[in-house]
């Protein structure tokens, strides 16, 4: 193991990790918003928009991110719609992630016992208060494991950003590999970098799940 090589290239990997993390988190954030929006559109059965949301979820869940990115980055500009590489990264990740987040939110909301909703109405809560104090906390407690699993999934999906000529972690590793060999060291650092990014996310997920568990106790079918 050539330690000198490893130490010399730590800055490259750091900048790559920074790109991966930055655009990964932008994508995750936008996915959460889009997912919540789609879920609510379907829950409240908003006409027309509900069908659009449903169609979008089907489209996003049944196509690979790599193909979506090629279409966004190299296909659309040919008919005049041009996004920067970074925008394509975030749009692509959001397109994919929004669908998965929507499903996670949906499973959360559906898990809340109807009795809870009715009980809330019985004691005089308005619809808004009901959602805020009764449904949402319980839905979130059930959805959080799935949401965090999606976060980890999305950060792993960023590994295809190299097709956008972005110097993310994978591209840094690939460039080093093609320009000089030392394959073992390059791959070792790649694995270490992804672990350093994803382990904290996983630990955070466990902590959050634990703290939210109280909200699920009202629902005898959860936990």
């Amino acid at each position, binding site marked *: 193991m050539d330690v000198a090589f490893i130490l010399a290239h730590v800055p490259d990997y750091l900048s790559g990790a920074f790109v991966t993390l930055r655009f990964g988190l932008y994508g995750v954030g936008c996915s959460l918003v889009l997912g919540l929006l789609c879920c609510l559109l379907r829950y409240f059965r908003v006409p027309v928009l509900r069908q659009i949301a449903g169609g979008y979820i089907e489209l996003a869940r049944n196509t690979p991110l790599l193909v979506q990115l090629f279409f966004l980055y*190299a296909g659309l*500009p*040919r008919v005049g719609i041009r996004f920067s590489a970074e925008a394509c990264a975030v749009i692509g990740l959001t397109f994919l992630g929004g669908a998965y987040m929507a499903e996670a939110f949906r499973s959360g909301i559906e898990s809340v016992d109807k009795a809870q909703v009715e009980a809330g109405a019985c004691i005089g809560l308005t619809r808004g208060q009901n959602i805020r104090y009764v449904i949402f906390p319980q839905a979130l407690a059930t959805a959080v494991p799935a949401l965090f699993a999606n976060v980890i999934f999305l950060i792993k999906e960023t590994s295809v950003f190299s*097709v956008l*000529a972005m110097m993310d972690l994978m591209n840094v590793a690939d*460039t080093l590999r*093609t*320009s000089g060999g030392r394959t073992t060291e390059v791959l070792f650092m790649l694995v270490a970098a992804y672990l350093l990014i994803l382990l904290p996310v996983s630990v955070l997920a466990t902590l959050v799940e634990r703290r939210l568990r109280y909200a699920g106790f009202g629902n005898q079918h959860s936990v």
Partner: protein
Amino acid sequence: MKKLNKIFALALALTLLLSLLVTASAEGFRTLDEIKASGKLVIGLFSDKKPFGYIDETGEYQGYDVYLARRLAEDLGVTLEPVSLDAPNRIEFLQSFKVDIVLANFTYTEERATQVDFALPYMKVALGVVSPDSALITEPEQLNGKTLIVSKGTTAETFFEKNYPEVKLAKYDSYTEAYIALLDGRGDALSTDNTEVLAWAIENPGFTVGIESLGSLDTINPAVSKGNETLLAWINEEIVKLGAEKFFHADYEATLRETYGANADADSLVVEGGEL
């Protein structure tokens, strides 16, 4: 307990079988006799680099490199088995013996010669830079601070990294992706072999080769796996022999004349008989 032992035994057996299968396939390069005996010559070619190596609408490989590939297979009395590759994979395909010869517009460099063996040259080449007519780049210094599109694993990549570090490089895995990037304005210019950018610029109005010859005058040579002496010797004999019948000039007429036009000079590109 019994079930568990069975599971472990099965898993162990499968792992052993897998490793056997895999190690069995790790061979070395194929010598000339082995190639003749097998009846096929495996050659790595570009499949998206018109007019040097591409696939036409009938599904056949065509191009300046492919013309040579077909003749080599014919003279050896075997069938040609083309394998599609991209610029960054050329060395790796030879090092892992996935192909016998690489005829993918492979430029000779000393660095590459430490990893593969090159035969006699069959084409002259230097670097060229193509850019949009509206913002023509005529000197490499004009690219400082701007973005230059290159394909990974090409001489253009190493040249600009070494000599013009202020130029931002956007690196793509294949020629198709690189050219689409130029069309979409993802860079201010694109650089690769001048023969290639010239051909592309002719077919794409709105773009001109502002820098026609950059860096040293290099050659394109066939490449084989390191140490494959029998194959290397045979290819060299072939190239000298083909020189006598002006093969590469015929190759130029058949594959490149249409692109470059009637006024272009074949001798600026062609190397006959391996002699510059």
